[in-house]
């Protein structure tokens, strides 16, 4: 019964995707868009499959993934530790709050030229940009989660003899986990978006660079391949995060 409903949901979800592809095919077939501007979907997916086995394409994906993971990991480590520290310690809080207030809304892409000038055109500048953009959603949700931990959970642990310095790891961190993972999810999507954009702006490799090269030479088919690839990458990473989430939050009502 349950699996039936689930397959039903999946099928229902495939409908709009199929519709989009059909619309796309229709636009091409009925001549609304010249194939040079909008290549037929069959051609794009064929090119994607063909590319998937080439080593240059692997190289581009690897470059993008390194930057994505590098930046995202830095953002998670910094965001979670600063967020928890700010929730637990009034002195750190007093320093972190105003700085976050100023830096969080700053569009970090605007800093990219500065990063390029300071860190060069290689991985570093892009990793720092991704980290800077993914950091704040993670930091803010960690802080929110850690500062709204139910008081009585902390009291219960203290009464059971947990020393104060262990409360942070034994109660605050696990209790804030739903919030932290929500932040990570936003951070991950932003990382995908930003790494691609950074590569479009200046790069010698990576998926974003592929798109720019294709656009320069008016290879419409090749423009779609990196876009679909980043979408699939995002989908896979999101799925992994989701799996991690349902494992870590198996006890929480909201999971």
């Amino acid at each position, binding site marked *: 019964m349950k699996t039936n409903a689930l397959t*039903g*949901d*999946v099928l*229902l*979800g*495939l409908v709009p*995707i199929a519709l*989009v592809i059909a619309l796309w095919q229709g636009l091409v077939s009925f001549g609304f*868009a010249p194939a040079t*501007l909008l290549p037929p979907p069959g051609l794009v997916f064929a090119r994607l499959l063909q590319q998937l086995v080439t080593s240059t394409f692997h190289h581009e994906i690897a470059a993008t993934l390194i930057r994505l993971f590098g930046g995202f990991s830095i953002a998670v480590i910094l965001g979670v530790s600063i967020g928890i520290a700010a*929730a*637990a*310690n*009034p002195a750190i809080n007093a320093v972190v709050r*105003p*700085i976050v*207030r*100023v830096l*969080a*809304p*700053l*569009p*970090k*892409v*605007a*800093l990219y030229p*500065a990063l390029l*000038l*300071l860190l060069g055109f290689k991985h570093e500048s892009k990793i720092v940009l991704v980290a800077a*953009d993914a950091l704040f*959603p993670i930091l803010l949700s960690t802080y*929110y989660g*850690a*500062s*709204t*931990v139910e*008081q009585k959970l*902390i009291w219960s642990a*203290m009464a059971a003899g947990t020393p*104060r310095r262990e*409360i942070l790891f034994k109660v*605050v961190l696990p209790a804030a986990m739903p919030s932290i993972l929500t932040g990570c999810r*936003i951070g991950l999507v*932003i990382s995908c*978006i*930003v790494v691609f*954009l950074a590569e*479009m*702006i200046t790069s010698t490799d990576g998926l*974003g660079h592929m*798109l720019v090269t294709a*656009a320069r030479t008016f290879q419409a088919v090749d*423009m779609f391949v990196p*876009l679909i690839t*980043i*979408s699939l990458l*995002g989908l896979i*990473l*999101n799925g992994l995060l989701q799996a991690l989430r349902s494992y870590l939050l198996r006890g929480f009502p*909201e999971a």
Partner: protein
Amino acid sequence: MMSAATLLKRTAPVLACVGLLAVWQFASLVLKNDSFPTAIEAIRAVPSILTDKDALINILASLRRMAIGFALALAFSIPLGLMMGRSRAVAAFFNPLLMVIYPVPKAALMPIIMLWLGVGDVSKTLVIFLGVSLPVIYHSFEGAKAVEEKMLWSGAAMGLSAGQRLVRIVLPAALPEILTGCRTGLVLALITMITSEMIARQSGAGNILFNALDMGQYDTVFAMIIIVGMMGICLDAAFERIRARLVRWSEPQFDMPLSFS
């Protein structure tokens, strides 16, 4: 009467700004890099940009596109997200498509959209609309899904129709989460605005920024960073004001540090 503590709290963001500028100033003096002007040099270049009529029109045009894109996105995404949250079928229908689109950088669609709609306002506004929509839909969806069933039951018992329940119960209950989505949307709107202008290279703040970078006018680059940064900070402050008004009831006691420390 304002105590020293509240005074310090009010001015803390300003102090943070000054502190960050001081770090910048110090770093640039130490690094002595030609392409890294000092904070003071960059600030000096700000007025010349803001008094330049073309540049000002460009920046205002950017803001206008962003406002329109943002407003359209909210009007479209919040109802969609709420309906997805309350109806399993609607969610199953839209969710996969949205999950496919979410990680795609909308500004990267610029080259393709430009081919269709030209390099004008429409393309750029559309791209911002797309960029803002997804987080807002996603968070409205999550917020609406988390609304307690029993609240809706009491609503139904009081005789509210399904539509009324959506507006009168689900919307306010999901509001904190929706606003989280709006904030992510605001961040993405700024990112998208700047990069789309940088790609279209026709007008706007992003265009000025990257043109200056290409031409090696580093003072202008950093002055533009300050201007764009101030835009972000002001928009965020305005947003925060509205948010605080709307969801006062759900405010956690942020000023209260955890009591074990």
